[in-house]
């Protein structure tokens, strides 16, 4: 469904992505792991054109484009098929929870207001915020804000949702509620790419795990392969550090 081929991106002299390729099929939950600075977030942001990649190709269903020469029209086509959930939620502060969800539907997708509100309420119900339609972001906890962020993402009925460290900014207590919603989505067959440090989420929910380091994909495989039989030394090193009790079988 979505394929990224050989993507390159540099910030000045700092090469962040050095030829990364990634393939996602419908229904996949791909978790990208890696130390900070490995390019995970940049990869995700490049897929939604929040960063302009220097080279590489993107194939999304029947759209086929090169990053370096992409037109505004293609960008907006691909953005219509995707949704993005940010690390720091990025809710619109001047809009209520419900307005945050309906804004894109009404303004960008030109849905009639009543229809948008209906969809918006359903999305918020799904993430367990049916009591919070008219709350402003400043009145919501971090976990609730992120769930609004997820509701906003699912409301547009995207083919794929990109999650950029959705729980990193949350209190440990609030992480569970967000991961719970994501798990639910995965069960329903939502296609997702998730950058995260939540190893348990990767183990339980992902059907593919990609390990990145230094702007390259070091290794990828099923969670089982990756967590119990990683092939590369670099992967083992990383997993050992992040999971102290990690015990792999050779």
């Amino acid at each position, binding site marked *: 469904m979505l394929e990224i081929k050989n993507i390159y991106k540099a910030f000045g002299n700092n090469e962040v992505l050095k030829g990364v390729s990634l393939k996602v099929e419908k229904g996949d939950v791909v978790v990208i792991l890696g130390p900070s600075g490995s390019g995970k977030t940049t990869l995700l942001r490049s897929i*939604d*054109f*929040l960063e302009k990649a220097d080279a590489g190709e993107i194939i999304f269903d029947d759209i086929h484009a090169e990053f370096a020469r992409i037109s505004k029209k293609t960008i*907006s086509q691909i*953005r*219509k098929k*995707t*949704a*993005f959930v*940010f690390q*720091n939620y*990025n*809710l*619109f*502060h*001047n*809009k209520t929870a419900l307005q945050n969800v309906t*804004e*894109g539907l009404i*303004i*960008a*997708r030109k849905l009639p207001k009543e229809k948008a509100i209906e969809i918006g309420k359903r999305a918020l119900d799904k993430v367990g915020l049916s009591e919070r339609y008219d709350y*402003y972001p*400043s*009145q919501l906890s971090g976990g609730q804000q992120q769930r609004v962020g997820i509701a*906003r993402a699912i409301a*547009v009925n995207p083919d794929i949702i990109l999650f950029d460290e959705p729980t990193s900014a949350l209190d440990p207590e609030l992480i569970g509620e967000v991961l719970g919603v994501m798990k639910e989505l995965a069960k329903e067959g939502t296609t997702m790419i998730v950058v995260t440090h939540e190893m348990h989420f990767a183990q339980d929910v992902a059907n593919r795990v990609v390990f990145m380091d230094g702007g390259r994909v070091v290794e990828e495989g099923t969670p089982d392969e990756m967590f119990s039989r990683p092939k590369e030394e670099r992967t083992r090193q990383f997993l050992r550090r992040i999971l102290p009790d990690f015990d792999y079988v050779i």
Partner: protein
Amino acid sequence: MELNTKFMIETFFDALAGIPVTLKLTLITLLVSAPIAFFMALGKIEKRKIAGKLISGYVSFIRGTPVVLQILFLYSLLPTLLNYLVKDVLGLSFNVFQLDTILYAYIVFVLNTTAVLSEVFRSALLTVGHGQMETALTIGMTKRQAYIRIIIPQAVVSALPNICNATIGLLKSTSLAFMMSVQDVTAIAKVKAAYGYNYIEAYLDICFVYIVLCSAIQLVFKLIERYACAYKKSSRTKGGALYARNKEYI
């Protein structure tokens, strides 16, 4: 020393007659400057290279010179320049020196206020943060829609205290219009005072007038702020995040 109270009361009412001119100078200047300043701020933020440089140069120049100097300069330069343009270049028989001198006052104050407000707007637009713009883009809104619906409404709110400052600063600097023989509050009082050397009385009068005017402006802005901040309902926003933080940790 004794104050001439009779003169003082008389002059006070005379000076009141100058209030419309003072307010007119302030309001029209604001109305003309604000939109220009806004687009200048936008030009700088969106990194238009040449425009950005020009704007920076302009702002530095205006901020680097005293208003009095700008008045002296323009007031002696502009009429002659205009006269040359009208008579010699355009060949019209229009007498430039008949123009109301308030026109030059408007020009000086607009030049000044535009520079001040462009920085006010720029900092206000930056407070909204890039994240919300990115979100708007990922849900398919155009940059323009994002500015109009998300960024600007928030920027205006955070700019209000500084706009209030700029307005008060402007109102006070309109007192310099007397140098261009504009009959504002200050000019009227000065003329009256010169007649019988009752300067102290006259100055006390207009001191009072300016205090009342400036207080009124502050009050108006306070009301606007209360209305516009409706979306920042949580207790956290009372006095800003810093306030809350101090309370928690001290």
